[in-house]
């Protein structure tokens, strides 16, 4: 891929305003051309055009994205891709792709990450993290190596710690409040 190849117009580049120093992909505006688009392109070379100046409407399915090396080992990769896709089923356009990596980068602000984290952990997308969501999260984290009583105990304790309004599930305010005090969250 040559350096002078026009993949995006200047306005498109400007509009992305994606900030640099993602952990894996340097998504600086002028590196956007070669690196991020390159990654997107190599997932499906026959689908993704090289030239993006006329904003083609290309979406890649979930199965392609979750096999990327950065996401392959992540237990929440399905949920991550689903929550960044527009249709909620995991079909990612290039815009969504850039969004995903910019939120996952180390320079994204904490509130943004908290919002997306809530979406990711909310498996049934009812805007609450209920006990089932928690149990699913825990099982994905530990690959079901905890006994069901232990899972249940841990979920109950977690809800006990974070639930503020007493409805036995976590709404976004509860989640954000708890996350703001979790020191390890930003990674």
């Amino acid at each position, binding site marked *: 891929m040559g350096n002078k190849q026009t993949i995006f117009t200047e306005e498109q580049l400007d509009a992305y305003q994606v900030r640099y*120093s993602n952990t894996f992909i340097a998504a600086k505006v002028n590196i956007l051309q070669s690196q991020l688009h390159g990654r997107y392109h190599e997932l499906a070379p026959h689908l993704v055009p090289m030239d993006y100046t006329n904003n083609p409407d290309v979406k890649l399915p979930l199965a392609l994205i979750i096999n990327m090396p950065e996401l392959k080992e992540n237990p929440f990769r399905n949920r991550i891709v689903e929550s960044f896709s527009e249709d909620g089923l995991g079909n990612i356009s290039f815009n969504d792709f850039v969004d995903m990596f910019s939120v996952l980068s180390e320079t994204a602000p904490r509130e943004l990450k908290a919002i997306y984290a809530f*979406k990711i952990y909310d498996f049934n*997308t009812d805007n609450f993290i*209920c006990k089932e969501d928690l149990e699913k999260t825990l099982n994905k984290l530990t690959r079901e190596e905890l006994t069901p009583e232990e899972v249940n105990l841990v979920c109950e*304790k977690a809800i006990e710690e974070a639930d503020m*309004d007493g409805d*036995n599930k976590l709404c976004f305010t509860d989640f954000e409040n708890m996350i703001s005090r979790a*020191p390890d969250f930003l990674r």
Partner: protein
Amino acid sequence: MCVCVCVCVRARVRGSQPASQPEPAQARRLVPGGASLSEAPPGTLEGKRVRRRDDGHIPPLPPKKSRFPARPQPSAHMDLDSVFYTHQHGLPSNPLLDQLPSYQSLLYRRKSSSASSTKRRSSMRGRFGSTSSWRWKGEKLEERPRSPQLNRPVHELTLSIEEKRRNKEQRMEQDKDLSSWKQWRLNTHRHLKRLKEDGMEVLSALQLWRGDIHVIEGMFGTGILSYFSFLRFLVLLNFVIFLLMFGFVMLPIIAVPYASGNSTFKVHDDAECSDYPSTSRQGLVVFHQYILDLLSGTGFLEKTYLFYGYYKVEAVHFPKFKYNLPLAYVLVTIAYLFLSLIWIVKRSAAGFKQNLIQDEDRFQSFCNKIFAGWDFCITDENAARLKRSSLLYELKTDLEEERIKQKIAGRTRKEKCRIYLLRLVLNLFVVTVLAACFYSIYKATVLSQESQLTDCNFIVKLIVEYLPSIVITLANFITPLMFTLIIQFEDYSPAFEIRFTLMRCVFMRLASIGVLLFSLWSQIAKCEDGNCSCGYNHKLYPCWESRVGQEMYKLMIFDFIIIGAVTIFVEFPRKIIVTYCDCGLAKWLGQQEFAIPQNVLEIVYGQTICWIGTFYCPLLPAISTIKYFIVFYIKKMTLVNNCRPATRPFRASSSNFFFLGVLLIGLALACVPIIVSIAQISCSKACGPFVNYATSWEVVPKTISQLPEELRSFLMALSSEAFAISLFVITCLAMFYVIALAGAHKAVVNQLREQLAVEGRDKRFLIQKLVQAQRKTMRSLSSTTMQDRHRPLYHGAENSSSEGLFTQLPPVSASSV
């Protein structure tokens, strides 16, 4: 208790029956009649957030399979909590929830074609529409009450790229309305912000070892990452200290011939004390003697820039001014100690803030593990597996801790006495072990200093020279093993066990240096006839500071050799054995784990030596920088090739605080010998910059006495007792104030937490009442107007429904209560 609650929860979820039974309880809980919620059941407004266990009511949740939960079945009994279900298809049940600001911050991005998103689009349009309506009114930008979303830069909003673009276009159009002055100001502001962000990017790209550390983070997670970034911090710190020393002490001496100055030194009157015999080897020198000299700083190295003894300069006269070298020497020493202190404190401030606010030990530990436990940076399959197992281990440890806590609470008096007695005995044992180690260090130092072997083997001589270092290293190797063994009998909780063992190891490591220095000094001050004429034993130690410097130099070299040797001769063979040999030994050893605490103690020990030794050996920071530089690559190599991550992982956040805390202890310990030797101990008369002063500190009062009158009286006032006492009192007051402030903040945080809970319940109550009233209105409307087509009331952001609701609410609520 827990078991039966979970059973009934499960039944409820599977059955998805309407929860008819708890409804009256719920209504009771929410105190109908509009009374204040202060009568909520006790136990909720206490400090702890005790969740109501007896209330097993959990609303039946929609089935998990479909992403779009089905509508709850309408039932005869109004399940009050069903108002909180949202739907993506069909009729949403509460447009009110969608309009809440907290919900709008969770906006999903949906395709514009799907019907379900029309309501969201319209609500968004409503939001944007309101801003554009403001624009049409032509209001000034500053007078418009900016919603929090608008104030943030575009790239931080949680919108898709198209919406961000639209947002940005809108903002640009809005800005065109402004006057040119304000436009220019806004533009400059934006450009400056961009410039600042670019600058930060460039700075972060210039960081040392950035790529290496990223690779390590991806493979081993953030606990080990913090160790390596700590190492990087130490390299930078040592380099800066070296620059200080070099710039202020060495550079003037080096620059003397080039700047046409000359250096003067006054010879001390007392010829006996100032006799410094030559240390260069005479005659035929065997080759290995040079190696011995290189490794122990004697011989040809002794009278070089390396050691204190070389700087026998009183003043350096440059054409324009006179440079007082002794004063510079003392002040640079104090300066680098201060600099280290400030830099470490600044670095640890962030972690400390969190520790101060969260005083509860087990605060949020489960939530932290579930939501923030997974390290999203892991890319390696093995690392992912290990992270999973470590999370599992952590969760099991936490559950275990809960059980132990309950066990401790249930201990009988007899058992408590037994445990306390056992702990006392074991602590005494630990103290005796420590005393034995210190005594052996003392003996080794004395032996090393007193031995006058001249015609022995080169190796034996080397060993004798390095005897204190060898003994210290051996002691530091054996004692942690002993401590880990002992603590298992003392029956503490696992977290406390780890911390207590670490504290003991830290104490052992750092105190051994102190013992070495003390034994050195006892040797130096020990004269034959009991009374030292020069204040020290000038026959054996004509230049005792150089001797101390040599000991520090030897310690540092030996430490470096040990790190390299352990890596090459212990870790690599272990890896080879474990990989290729299938015997019982391999199984028992297991693969090497990168034990973070021990490694951190190692480098803190090295840094303490550097701090103490820089006064006696000005080039030591440079040696230390090079040493840590090489150690980084050694550790990285051993980590990548030999190690698997620890099964008991260190949490990154608390580990930063731990590292810097231990470093601060090392700094505090390093200050003590330096202060004592500067202020108390008489400096040697034969070498060094302080030949003409009784102690090193004396140069400062002498310089002050030569200053002009006003400055001198000012400085005298600063050092008087009155000033010191008032400063002390003011500092104490400031400290008490800050402590009180912290306590007040904690109380405010607790209060706000409770208020948050109360607000949440308020909201639920109000929404439930509203929807109840809505439904009653709907029913009464549909029953009275059968002819009218059933107008869909729940349509997007049509405010008519809610307005209608509000107009009809008063008569309805009176009947519903």
